[in-house]
């Protein structure tokens, strides 16, 4: 198959005005073939495992399965159900709101916490690698256990929640954490502290990668450490920050972790939704709809999510002027 396509490509005249010599053309053909052959796995991979299922899901979102009666084309019905206030619009809005807030707050928050962790983990001390290990430990708690653990830690005093027991012993009022609409999303974002070990690693490698002579020069110029942070560390790390913002926000928008974290609440309709739907995220909603057998409706919701992800990726790239790729790298 590859050979055929290569031959077809070679058989047509090149677009250049002056025809290149046969030798050049032959070399180009080989180059093209080499490149394509190397990339062939991923070309097949994205077509088969990404684009093909996406297109099928898109088609599904405009249809309704009627069992043996076959598939009916219902146009935008599912999108209308999701967006119209006559139906589920209000809930959809709330869910997308939660998801956006979570993705847009938790990702920078995690990076900031990770930065401070990395500062500490970068002390030149004996046994620092043990500390790094300890900082990283909460990241590797398996999802199945972490839900039970964190719900337990944030429970009321009567339910032996450790934090509330601590608060009451310090004479502070009890916090409602996951038990109130107002505080549950904040609590979830706050939980990100325990997984900041991941971004700590990223920052550590960034620190390591910044040439030390930059700092030396700055010190000679009399810069203090805050200035160094603002003028050297951050600008030099912008590509890293940007990369993590993009992947983090895209990932955060598709987040399903609350499903496990607060999975003990709610029936099949709002499993993982939290109190008053305050932790209801789009991907969780899609899974619930899927489990209730509303596949096509779930597909429509998934495409609304896809759309939002696309917008945010676009915005991130359009506003990426602050990213500093170094002077010598001319693309």
């Amino acid at each position: 198959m590859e050979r055929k396509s290569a031959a077809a490509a070679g058989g047509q005249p090149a677009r250049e005005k002056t025809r290149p010599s046969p030798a050049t053309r032959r070399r180009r053909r080989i180059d093209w073939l080499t490149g394509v052959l190397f990339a062939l796995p991923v070309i097949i991979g994205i077509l088969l495992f990404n684009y093909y299922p996406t297109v099928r899901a898109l088609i599904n979102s405009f249809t309704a399965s009627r069992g043996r009666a076959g598939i009916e084309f219902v146009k935008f019905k599912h999108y209308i159900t999701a967006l119209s206030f006559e139906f589920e619009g209000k809930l959809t809005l709330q869910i997308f709101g939660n998801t956006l807030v979570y993705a847009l707050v938790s990702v920078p928050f995690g990076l900031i916490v990770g930065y401070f962790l990395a500062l500490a983990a970068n002390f030149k001390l004996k046994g620092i690698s043990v500390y790094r290990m300890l900082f990283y430990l909460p990241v590797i708690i398996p999802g199945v256990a972490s839900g039970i653990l964190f719900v337990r830690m944030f429970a009321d005093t009567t339910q032996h929640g450790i934090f509330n027991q601590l608060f009451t012993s310090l004479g502070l009022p009890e916090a409602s954490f996951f038990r109130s609409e107002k505080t549950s999303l904040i609590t979830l974002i706050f939980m990100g502290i325990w997984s900041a070990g991941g971004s700590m690693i990223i920052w550590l490698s960034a620190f390591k990668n910044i040439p030390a002579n930059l700092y030396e020069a700055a010190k000679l110029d009399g810069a203090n450490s805050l200035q160094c942070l603002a003028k050297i560390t951050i600008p030099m790390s912008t590509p890293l920050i940007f990369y993590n913002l993009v992947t983090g926000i895209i990932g955060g928008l598709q987040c399903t972790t609350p499903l496990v974290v607060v999975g003990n609440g709610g029936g099949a309709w709002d499993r993982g939704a939290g109190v008053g739907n305050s932790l209801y995220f789009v991907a969780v909603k899609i899974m619930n709809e899927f489990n209730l057998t509303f596949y096509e409706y779930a597909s429509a919701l998934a495409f609304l999510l896809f759309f939002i992800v696309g917008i945010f990726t676009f915005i991130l790239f359009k506003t990426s002027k602050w990213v500093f790729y170094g002077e010598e790298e001319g693309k």
Partner: protein
Amino acid sequence: MRRIKLFASLAGAALLAGSMLCGAGCSEPEAAGKADTTLDPATRATIKLGISTQNQEGKIAQNLIASFNEKYPNITVETVSMSGSNTVNDINRLHSTGQAPDIFLCNSFDMLTINGMELLYDFSEVIADEIEAGTFSYDDYYDTYFRLGQADFNGAQLMIPRSADRVVVHYDKKIIKDAEAETGLDILSHIHNGWTWDEFDQVCDMLKQYSVFQQPNRYLVDSYCEWEAVFYPIFRHFGVQIFAPEKNGQLTFVSDEAHQALDFIKAWADKGYIGHGGVEANFRNENGGVMLFQSQAVSEVETLLSLNKYPVRTSEEPMSDYYDVVTMPVFEGDEYIGAGAAGYCAYYGNKNPTVVWAFMKHIISKEGQNAIADAGVNLVPVRKDMADYQDPSNHWGIGYTDYNLAAYTYEPDWNCYTDYFIKPGYSEFATALNLKFGQVIKEYAGGKSYEAVTGNLDKEIKTILQKK
């Protein structure tokens, strides 16, 4: 540019290949024809049985197949594992990929939903033939459970029930005895088959005087009030009509009657029997709860034993000193006990309807029912002639003769089943709609206002019906 075109055509080819793949796999199978009433014991055939992976279902299936093979040694029954937590999903997926099993385990609600997709085989004709031949009579079985297996509860027989599942109250005798010892009250004698809600309240009030239950966050009852088998008998007593048949199936749930029924359930929370906010008593795990509404048979005992809930118990003491079951409370003069059914359905495109029907008949035969019991699950037989659990030829009572198993078969006429999905067009949403009603009840019992839980119900139901 040309390369892009090439890329696009590659993409197109992949899509085409993919859809062709689908086309080959998704072709609808022929609907299975009529089943014969008799099957030659020497018949050679293979059928596929879809079983849930939960609980003891694997064991039950093995036992059923083994005993079936004693009659029909040349029929191979292959098992297909399904998740069991979502039968509708499983069947729909397996159907869409041409791998649906011939027979599968299903409950009555999922049956309605799957029937909405027209994926079920109708046994009515063959049953009619059997009745004509005098080899089958509905009278041998509890009526309720067969009705639950019928479309619109009075039509095509789509599911063959395998057991008589009804709600019973499980209670912790040990805790009640401890309470009696402390308070000096006579509590246990109020608990008997056929007891009423008033007596239930009395028992709970007396137990509330026990110091253990005066602690905060200690509750009495695991009510499962969001479960239709529990709430529907109560709704029915108060005259709630969930859908109005005369108004073309319009939702009439939101009504004064429903408010009363909801208040009846909420009173349990207000009186401290169940916790607000969905906190149950946790009968099984913690020492707190006393009672539990559950239709599952005495396999509950196994769970309690394995949890080591009664560590002080000596092995000579019978478990029935610690734990027992009794009928669900009823309203005097207006008795209803919730019943649900699980059974086996057949796929509309099953390969061999005669063999499928022979297997179904085997499930509800005495041998089949005993084979199920031998798996250690003690499901209550759906046959009336097997009600006597003291009789060792009825295996479901073996090892449990000390218990009040009569609670499962006491006054079968009181059974009340979930026949409120009468309007065609709603039944395919049965699973989803039912979950919604359960949510309303749970939220109201959990302390939300009546307006908050019912205000949007019309809209929410409308939304559900819009999702397909």
